[in-house]
């Protein structure tokens, strides 16, 4: 049969992300998909050569607008381990709380976009309505809705008072309760089940073979979660990875829905366990210039992110590299797209939660 090649992206109605994919079709079936990476490459990693290491955190934060807090945190954690700086306890807990709130924010954003992609605009509005309130929490506590700029090497810039933390927890729990009615729609609506159920199935073996990360792997039944390594105070949190076994698009939606509840619970545990009081130290300023190299792993909303930092004792780092979760999930996406119908391609691509801004940096 004659093959047709159609471009999917960089501009595509279903996806705000500039993903570039060439789909090779036989009739309506996708035979192959060829990704091209680099359409929005900005050379942020190269900037370490001319931006001082103290200022680079603000650049790293701008890798992505959805997980900007985690990027800033990952950079600071890397530099702290090179420079042997110990983060004050309250600062570490505050980072954990902000990281979990940003996970809720990211999942809500994605659930909205996913609903929009499979044609459920009403649901999209409901998800983003809750996300707006989460962004308000960020604006109150960090000063920014998207770019937070609270991470410093050695701690955090701002404190959240204990009363405000309690209010945030109450607000999150109320939002979580209110969101349950919206979340139920994802699980019970027949049109969603028809559109996503059984589509793009990634078996556990395949997920291992292509090294899927994050919710993508967990939806296929692999209980992997970088938070389980226990760094950044996660060892003091009771945490069970959310897993589903179906491995289809619907399972990936359900994993993210359940992770919102899990994150609210982690925020609750953190607020209970963190040291209370006003005026506790938040920042241990590093001395001198960094020298050494380190790998850091964090669990971002989309999966495991890996930072490599090499410093040579000067003000500028020698090398900085981030391997983002979307980059790790591209082989899984290609595997799923092969053999599916053209109409299912948008849903399959969306359920890996692609962040091209992260991927191409």
């Amino acid at each position: 049969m004659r093959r047709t090649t159609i471009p999917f992206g960089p501009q595509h109605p279903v996806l705000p992300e500039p993903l570039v994919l060439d789909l090779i079709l036989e009739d309506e079936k996708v035979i192959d998909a060829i990704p091209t990476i680099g359409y929005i490459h900005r050379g942020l990693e190269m900037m370490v050569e001319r931006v001082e290491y103290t200022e680079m955190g603000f650049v790293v934060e701008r890798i992505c607008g959805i997980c900007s807090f985690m990027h800033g945190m990952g950079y600071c954690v890397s530099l702290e381990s090179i420079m042997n700086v110990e983060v004050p306890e309250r600062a570490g807990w505050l980072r954990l709380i902000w990281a979990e709130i940003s996970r809720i924010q990211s999942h809500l954003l994605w659930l909205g976009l996913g609903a929009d992609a499979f044609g459920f605009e009403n649901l999209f509005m409901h998800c983003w309505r809750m996300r707006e309130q989460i962004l308000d929490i960020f604006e109150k506590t960090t000063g920014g809705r998207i770019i937070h700029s609270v991470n410093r090497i050695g701690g955090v810039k701002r404190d959240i008072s204990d009363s405000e933390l309690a209010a945030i927890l109450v607000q999150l729990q109320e939002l979580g309760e209110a969101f349950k009615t919206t979340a139920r729609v994802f699980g019970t609506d027949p049109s969603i089940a028809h559109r996503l159920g059984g589509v793009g199935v990634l078996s556990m073996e395949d997920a291992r073979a292509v090294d899927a990360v994050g919710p993508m792997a967990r939806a296929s039944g692999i209980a992997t979660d970088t938070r389980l390594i226990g760094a950044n105070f996660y060892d003091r949190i009771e945490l069970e990875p959310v897993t589903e076994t179906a491995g289809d698009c619907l399972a990936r939606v359900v994993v993210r829905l359940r992770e919102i509840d899990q994150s609210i619970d982690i925020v609750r545990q953190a607020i209970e366990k963190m040291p209370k009081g006003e005026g506790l130290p938040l920042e241990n300023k590093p001395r001198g210039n960094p020298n050494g190299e380190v790998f850091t792993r964090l669990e971002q909303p989309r999966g495991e992110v890996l930072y490599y930092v090499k410093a040579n004792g000067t003000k500028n780092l020698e090398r900085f590299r981030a391997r983002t979760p979307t980059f790790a999930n591209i082989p899984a996406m290609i595997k799923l797209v092969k053999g599916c119908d053209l109409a299912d391609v948008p849903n399959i691509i969306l359920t890996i939660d692609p962040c091209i801004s992260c991927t191409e940096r």
Partner: protein
Amino acid sequence: MPNPLKLPMIPRALRNLVSKPATRRYPFEIRPRFAGARGTIEFDVETCNYCMLCARRCPAAAITVSREERTWAIEQLTCIACGVCVDVCSKHSLSMSVNSRAVHLRSEVGPQGQRPGHEEWHKPAPAATDIPAVAGVPAPAASQGA
């Protein structure tokens, strides 16, 4: 297979028909900025000692300070509102206001080719007693806190 007669969104949609909208009528109803929000940098020329630390530490290189000419200038459209300059200023001349950045047109170029959003302060030598002259466009009093 889920029951096709079960449409869980219907009660929610009916409730939305009679409930208040989730959005604000924006130009008529504006939510005030939160107290800790990061907006624009405000500068107090009287207390500045031109140590240049803010200019050196600014990640966006938005601040230019001249010790000889006793001028302090900021490009408001280049500033990323990270707050580093406010932290390092030992004289507390800098503060972060919650006001969001003013809108500037591309045509707003100053007489010496200053970019839109350029604000500049000049403090005469300590002997002088008059109020600080404004050497840039637009005037800081007019553009700040807008």
